[in-house]
């Protein structure tokens, strides 16, 4: 699996950055030729994960890059923060969430949208979430 391009770094410091991350994700997805529905999934996942980084992670960074494996092209988005960390990653991945504003982090949803999602987290140190959608 190789990085086709150096990752583009997008800071996530405030709400405007969440919007910016979404816009960049859309531009990348369109450039890579994803279908409209797939683009929407990528954007939505990016928005969820960026917001997580902002709210739960207390701000951080996002790295967008293009990957290639076995002739397939993939868009990778990595979200890093130095926040409190996630206590139970397994549970966070399972949670759905409701509009009642539950604590669901939406990680399970993001995984369903992208197909490939890994989470690394250490209490008190931070979290790194990497989501990849393959074309």
């Amino acid at each position, binding site marked *: 699996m190789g990085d086709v391009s150096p990752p583009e770094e997008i800071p996530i410091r405030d*709400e*405007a950055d969440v919007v910016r991350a979404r816009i960049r994700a859309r531009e990348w997805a369109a450039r890579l030729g994803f279908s409209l*529905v797939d683009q*929407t999934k990528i954007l939505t996942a990016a928005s969820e994960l960026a917001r997580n980084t902002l709210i739960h992670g207390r701000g951080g960074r996002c790295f967008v890059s293009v990957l290639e494996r076995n002739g397939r092209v993939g868009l990778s988005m990595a979200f890093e923060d130095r926040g409190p960390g996630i206590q139970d990653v397994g549970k966070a991945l399972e949670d*759905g969430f409701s*509009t009642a*504003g539950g604590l669901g982090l*939406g990680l399970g949803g993001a995984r*369903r949208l992208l197909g490939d999602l890994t989470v690394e987290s250490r209490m008190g140190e931070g979290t790194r979430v990497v989501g990849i959608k393959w074309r």
Partner: protein
Amino acid sequence: MERIPILKVGPYLLVTIQVDMHDRLAMALQDDLMSAIQRTGAHGVLLDISALEIVDSFIGRMLGNIASMSRVLDAETVVVGMRPAVAITMVELGLSLAGVRTALNVDQGMELLARPGKEGRGGADCG
């Protein structure tokens, strides 16, 4: 900061969301809308999201909040114009708009508001 315009259409209020929503804008919209409902005595609110490319959990919550708050003020809310790609993504995401009715466009939204209301479509329980 720009605010989202609220129009009066007959006995209803129409809100067309065309920009990227963020926290402060959403709060401002909710405030403005509740004042408008009180001021005009409108019994229905149409939220036009046909320009939205995505509905994530944040926006989903906002729509739900608007519906709940409006109901307290005796106004029903209908969300109209959801794009297919957005609907498909929301289903995949497991996002439900329970308690929020939906219609394909403003016209059908107004018809829905005119009918005696009950818990309508919009709650999508995706297995």
